[in-house]
């Protein structure tokens, strides 16, 4: 395992033009992903959390080039000797690295073609890679088994499967090309609670056995805590906090993270409801507020927050936050007492 990151994203942007008037002139931009930078190590699970519209899905899709980013660099080193800038790669270049990355979607009902058998669905990425058909058959059966699907059921159509099994099919499809990077976009959100655990366990087992790197996009902070090594919190297109999972949950450095963590309802009658209710709305990416995007909802905001946008900076080793007062604020996490002394400034 090399020490180079598998993926190095620098200043990634995705802007959608806003057109208005009869001539459809571009009058502004929705900055869905705005100047995002992070690194992903080999074998690492990076959780990407945030509320709907914060750009987490767009970011995931830009990375696998399901959509084309507006700017920035996403340097991807799937194997020694291969380096591709995913943000700028052309069609041919992309085709060569497609097999190293794949995606699992949220809804296992709409992401499977009802007209294809499960065998065809799982084998599709291999066919796109022009793998000989006898290899495909063998590969599909092996991966289906790994994902907990009965190979005898492969000639069935997706409608014969329950939600959890469909998600297993989606996972098998994502893993059939032996990728090194999987972007999982809310892979358990559409599933029943008792099935969620099965799929999470499966993803975790496969990640460890195959040494995969995951970008795990989710809004459920308990799920992310369970599966991720590091977590990036997004707000209105930007990463506002990025840190090891334990640190982030024990000692958040951004007021938005604190509010997010406090808002997760816990199934424990003895936990007092200390939810920080954020006023107002998630800021619009088309017309964001001045300065720090979070300042209108932030209970710690001061004058400087209205005028200056805080950059994402390393507050303590490995813990990045985009807040002017990241050092001085004593924000409350959800893990009672961190064992490490690292959290104390």
């Amino acid at each position, binding site marked *: 395992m090399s020490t180079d990151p598998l993926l190095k994203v620098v200043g990634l942007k995705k802007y959608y033009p806003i057109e208005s008037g009869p001539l459809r002139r571009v009058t502004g931009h929705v900055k869905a992903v705005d100047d995002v930078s992070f690194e992903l190590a080999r074998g690492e699970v990076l959780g990407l959390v945030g509320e*709907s519209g914060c750009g987490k899905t767009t970011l995931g899709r830009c990375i696998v080039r399901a959509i084309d980013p507006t700017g920035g660099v996403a340097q991807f080193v799937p194997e020694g000797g291969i380096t591709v800038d995913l943000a700028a790669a052309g069609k041919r270049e992309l085709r060569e690295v497609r097999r190293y990355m794949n995606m699992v979607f949220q809804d296992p009902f709409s992401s499977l073609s009802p007209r294809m058998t499960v065998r065809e669905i799982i084998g599709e990425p291999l066919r796109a890679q022009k793998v000989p058909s006898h290899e495909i058959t063998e590969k599909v059966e092996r991966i289906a088994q790994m994902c907990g699907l009965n190979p005898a059921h492969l000639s069935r159509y997706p409608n014969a499967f329950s939600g959890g099994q469909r998600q297993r099919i989606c996972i098998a499809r994502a893993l059939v090309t032996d990728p090194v990077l999987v972007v999982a976009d809310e892979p358990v959100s559409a599933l029943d*609670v*008792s099935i969620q*655990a099965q799929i999470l366990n499966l993803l975790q087992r496969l990640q460890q056995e195959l040494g995969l790197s995951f970008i795990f996009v989710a809004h459920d*902070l308990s799920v992310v805590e369970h599966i991720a090594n590091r977590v990036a919190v997004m707000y209105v297109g930007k990463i506002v906090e990025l840190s090891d999972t334990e640190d982030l949950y024990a000692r958040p450095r951004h007021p938005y993270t604190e509010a997010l963590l*406090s*808002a997760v*309802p816990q199934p424990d009658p003895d936990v007092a409801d200390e939810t920080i209710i954020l006023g107002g709305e998630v800021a619009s990416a088309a017309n964001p507020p001045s300065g720090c995007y979070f300042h209108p909802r932030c209970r710690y905001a001061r004058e400087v927050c209205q005028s200056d946008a805080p950059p994402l900076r390393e507050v303590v080793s490995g813990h990045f936050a985009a807040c002017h007062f990241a050092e001085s604020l004593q924000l409350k996490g959800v893990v009672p007492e961190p064992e490490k002394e690292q959290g104390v400034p």
Partner: protein
Amino acid sequence: MDELGDRTMDMTDSASTNQPLLEVKDLRVVLPLLEGNLVAADGVSFAIRPGRTLGLVGESGCGKTITAQSILKIAPRKARTDGRILLHYADRPATDIIGLGADDPELLKIRGGECAMIFQEPMTSFSPVHTIGNQLMETILLHRTRHRREAHDLAVAMLAKVGIPAPAETLKKYPHHLSGGMRQRAMIAMALASQPRLLIADEPTTALDVTVQAQVLRLMKDLQHDLGMAILYISHDLGVIARMADEVAVMYMGSIVEQAAVRDLLRTPMHPYTRGLMASVPRIGKKSGEPLQSIKGNVPVPINKPRACGFFPRCPVAIEGVCDRVVPPLTPVAAGHSAACFRYSEVVAAAGLDQGGANVH
């Protein structure tokens, strides 16, 4: 459709002070399908007191939604409904909703007026060809005021209350102009606009973000405090239930398998399904690094449901020859705590000794 027209009035309940607002007694809903009879609700009984919240927990297909739909008589037309659903009044005998005809004026007053509902799907619950304002004001004009001006102001106030920015402009928008979250809020506004005595909330915050969910949950609690309405809160999220409910009923395969005060249920769940459900959700702040305990198998579809414990095929402590032959009745196991399991005492004992191994047999 149903042969229970003679049950319209029920005089058995005297006007006691602690009288429930709504009583569901032995509700049974069967959907005849091509594949067989789907028993969506199988002997469901519960009561909701004024100003209190009953949480109805379960996974998809467990019958929680059809139970709620039966209360408003909006279950699918082919559903065969049996049992009694009594809506109590302080000054007159209770109404059995199941006995009401489809166009009974009483039913029209109950539906959307005294009992309002928030649906799970914000996309499909609004008409796409009418503005939000039109749809919101329709409810208000029907149940609260006849003056359009006043209705308009109320609509604006309701939208503002559920956290929609620029509420006056939003009234002129069509549902597709709003995001999913915004649409859900507009629907909550619509349900609360008639100041219902009972609010049926079917997974109302499932589509919302956590910070917005927190706002909405608090809003519903505040409104409940102000108006004294009762809430039937349907959710699969035990965290939300812990925050919202006073009492909880857990449903599985159309039956209530456990019922208790929220604290008791979360502290000492007695049914293996409830225990499994609680073990399978990751808890925030409790990262262990271990795989989650999951309930084996899939959520079954209750078609041609056998006379047996519905949880039998997935249960880690099932007794062969007993649990697959007899339906365990919902029986009191502690003060205010009922469970439908033959082995609840052993389940509790085993869990007390060994948290991790309780599900391994």
